[in-house]
């Protein structure tokens, strides 16, 4: 039976070598769990047993036992190497799932933006101070909002929101829809006035947004222009 041992060792060396070579030459898809690190560690693990197989074959054939002392150390390295390869595949799988989620979320976000830009009414988001943080195409046009590429927000505008009495409320800064900052589910009219006296009456529907602390963190405000005057 021991006569078969060198043959088994030689065959195992060839098979391990083939496995190492094939995994190195593999060109997996970019989104596959098998990445460069997996292939490197897996091939290294296979390579160790190529050495073990050759060493055993030489020893059992009575040619040389020079590698035998190294073989003992080599075998111990195999399990950590193949475990690292498996762990790398696991980590890569998780990373790929996160990337897929990110791209799905990103495309959903883009789609939502396109839908909002397409609706025939103005849509703005105001923060809890009434500052406009988002405006769709219609709102940018009607409220003369323009994006500031430096700050990522909107450039200051000079219209001012008027109160029910037709006068600016005390302390309200231009370009802010402060009345909607803390308003929950309202359908009202809002007038805004430009410095040249031009006024626009907006029919507004708003709904509040929750902040992280649970309070009101601003509002989504949809509006249509119902009147333009002086």
């Amino acid at each position: 039976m021991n006569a078969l041992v060198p043959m088994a060792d030689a065959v195992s060396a060839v098979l391990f070598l083939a496995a190492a070579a094939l995994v190195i030459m593999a060109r997996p898809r970019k989104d596959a769990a098998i990445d460069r690190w997996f292939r490197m560690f897996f091939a290294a693990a296979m390579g160790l047993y190529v050495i073990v197989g050759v060493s055993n074959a030489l020893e059992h054939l009575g040619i040389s036992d020079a590698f035998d002392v190294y073989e003992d150390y080599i075998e111990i390295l195999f399990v950590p190497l193949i475990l690292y390869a498996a762990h790398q595949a696991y980590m890569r799988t998780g990373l790929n799932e996160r990337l897929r989620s990110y791209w799905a979320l990103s495309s959903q976000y883009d789609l939502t933006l396109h839908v909002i830009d397409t609706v025939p009414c103005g849509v703005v988001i105001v923060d809890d101070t009434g500052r406009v943080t988002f405006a769709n195409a219609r709102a940018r046009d009607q409220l003369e909002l323009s994006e500031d590429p430096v700050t990522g927000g909107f450039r200051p505008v000079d219209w001012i929101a008027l109160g029910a009495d037709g006068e600016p409320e005390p302390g309200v800064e231009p370009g802010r829809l402060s009345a909607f900052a803390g308003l929950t589910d309202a359908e009202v009219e809002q007038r805004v006035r430009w410095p040249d006296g031009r006024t626009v009456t907006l029919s507004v529907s708003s709904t509040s947004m929750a902040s992280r602390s649970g309070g009101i963190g601003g509002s989504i405000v949809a509006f249509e222009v119902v009147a333009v005057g002086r």
Partner: protein
Amino acid sequence: MGEGGAEVQPNEVVNLAISVLLAPMFYLAVTRADLPDRSWLLAGYAVLLVAFVATIAEGFLLPESLNFVEHLCYTVAAGLFLRFVIGVRRMGGGRASA
């Protein structure tokens, strides 16, 4: 060790201990990764464990038979790992299609 004719090499015991201790981690990593044909990889590892047990056991009983079993296990494990790699290459490195 080595008393009463039994001959156990420390490195073989350490190797078996490491292999058994890390086997659950290996199993979890392989089963949770998006690996094609992973059962071949798990089988290869399991067969190597048998080889590690056989190489220690041959110091106590049936030295010739268990030595042969050990080396046969290496060959079988090599074949299983090779089969896994062939599956990896055939399926482009992952089970889910792009």
